[in-house]
């Protein structure tokens, strides 16, 4: 099928998001031979458009003061208006894609294809993709009927960024299409996450604890281990949700991005939102009682064990070895 393929380019502070280049690769592997068109919306976005034109053959620019903040409720009617019938639109599967995508597919009357991690090919009008379910414990082959078009969200890191060649893409100013937009949700402000006393982003050795620790009282076992190692305690989201540790210790897409040399994942399953916060390829030691936990695919070294048994022994041995 020769559907037109579009990519929504998210940007912040005058720079395109990392997803912009990954989505080029995703678009090409889903729709071979297509040359995706980039959609850039915002206010004062010439620099982003120029940056994007280096990797896309065509860039549609929607420059309006009302679009200064990417409010999905405003962008949805704009996209419904400007996307041609049958078009495929790729978005990042992040909090913006979650906000915009599902409703957009309904309003366009097209298929919604969420959180793609792999592509098996296009057969006629059937797009064959790979997704993950059950927090990444199993994968699924999924067939999507995309004859009428689709809204597709793509997981960060699933596709390699396209080489940003000098495509010298053409920038088409479509700002006139983005007038008179209104939404029943209005953006007020952004509140940055509180800083806190500790800064896990600067630590070389992190001992990170997840829901597998079971109870609040057991956090002490992890603190003991970290102390014996001379390391800092960090954690996954459920530990912060339960208020067992403070928010500044959370690693992940909605927490901190860390770059340690050594990272211990204790009772952490390895969701992509957690792994998304670990950069710089650390020596990653995972301890988990479930041999199939996805964390073992990301770890350097793994141990299948019950934390309650292993942690006290490990802490004791480290203390003695000093």
């Amino acid at each position, binding site marked *: 099928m020769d559907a037109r393929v579009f990519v929504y380019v998210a940007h912040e502070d005058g720079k395109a998001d990392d997803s912009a280049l990954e989505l080029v690769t995703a678009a090409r592997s889903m729709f071979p031979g297509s040359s995706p068109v980039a959609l850039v919306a915002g206010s004062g976005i010439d620099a982003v458009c120029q940056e994007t034109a280096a990797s896309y053959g065509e860039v549609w620019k929607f420059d309006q003061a009302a679009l200064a903040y990417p409010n999905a409720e405003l962008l949805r009617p704009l996209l419904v208006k400007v996307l041609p019938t049958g078009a495929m639109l790729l978005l990042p599967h992040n909090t913006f894609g979650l906000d915009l995508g*599902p409703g957009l597919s309904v309003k366009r009357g097209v298929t919604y294809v969420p959180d793609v991690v792999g592509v098996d090919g296009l057969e006629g009008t059937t797009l064959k993709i*790979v997704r993950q379910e*059950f927090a990444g414990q199993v994968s699924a082959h999924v067939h999507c009927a995309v004859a009428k078009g689709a809204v597709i969200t793509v997981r960060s890191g699933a596709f390699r960024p396209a080489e940003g060649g000098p495509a010298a893409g053409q920038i088409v100013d479509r700002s006139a299409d983005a007038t008179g937009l209104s939404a029943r*949700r209005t953006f*007020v*402000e952004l509140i940055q996450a509180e800083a806190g006393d500790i800064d896990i982003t600067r630590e070389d050795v992190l001992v990170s604890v997840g829901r597998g620790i079971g109870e609040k009282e057991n956090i002490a076992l992890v603190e003991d281990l970290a102390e014996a190692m001379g390391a800092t305690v960090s954690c996954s989201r459920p530990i912060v949700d339960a208020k067992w540790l403070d928010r500044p210790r959370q690693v992940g897409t909605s927490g901190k991005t860390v770059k340690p*040399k050594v990272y211990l994942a204790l009772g952490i399953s390895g969701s992509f939102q957690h792994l998304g916060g670990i950069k710089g390829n650390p*020596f990653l030691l995972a301890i988990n009682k479930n041999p199939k936990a996805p964390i073992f695919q990301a770890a350097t070294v793994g141990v*299948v064990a019950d934390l309650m048994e292993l942690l006290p022994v490990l802490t004791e*041995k480290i203390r003695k070895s000093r």
Partner: protein
Amino acid sequence: MEILVCVKRVPDAAENEISVGAEGADIRRDDLVYSVNEWDNYAVEEAVQIVEREGGNVTIVSMGDGDAEEVVRREMAMGATQGLLLTDAAFDGSDGLGIATILAAAARKRQYDLILTGALADDGAGQVGGMLAALLDWPYASVVNKIETKDGKSLRIGREIEGGTQEISDIETPCVLSIQTGINEPRYVGIRGIRKVASIEIPVLDAGALGIDAATVGATAANVRRIDYFVPQLGASAEMIEGSTEEVAGKLVDLLKAKGGIR
């Protein structure tokens, strides 16, 4: 405020080792522990807190077979006055849009000011809330981690976006919000709480009662179909360390020392 909360019964991913059954047709379900989807539990707590503050009613709705009733009742015990079960063989195999279509039909049966869903469930799609809003033509916000009632016509909400930044907006009611974990601390529900709601009748609505054309939902209408489950063969996975607890701990000490993990 009249609040509808959509909940799903799911295998508890933290409790279970999920494995793939024969020929990948399904996961092995025999020994699974089921519970309410984690995100939905926060949505119910939030709805109950709003109603405790402002008055009104919370209704819990779930699409699913008879087994989902237990989950509806458990969530009702948190402080909801009503429950609804949407059950029909014609619903089997629905994709996200099918499920949203069924929930939208249930939502149209009454006047609600607010509909809450979880931000995500076991399939990781995070799609039903946004689709439901679009079908009802209501405004929508996802990954919500704060709801303040302003006046009768709008809410001040926070969305938790990347890096934990909170995006504050005002949204008109009626609206659909998908709730992120951590927005509150869901209350504990004991046997006594569940007993209190045990006698409340939970109406079961099928496609006919909901006024849904069965051809618009279920497997035949689905544009997105799961063909099978599989466990991916990944090239580079972890080097596994085995042995007695003593042995493993000993090896880990050596490794951590070598990698600079003990300072």
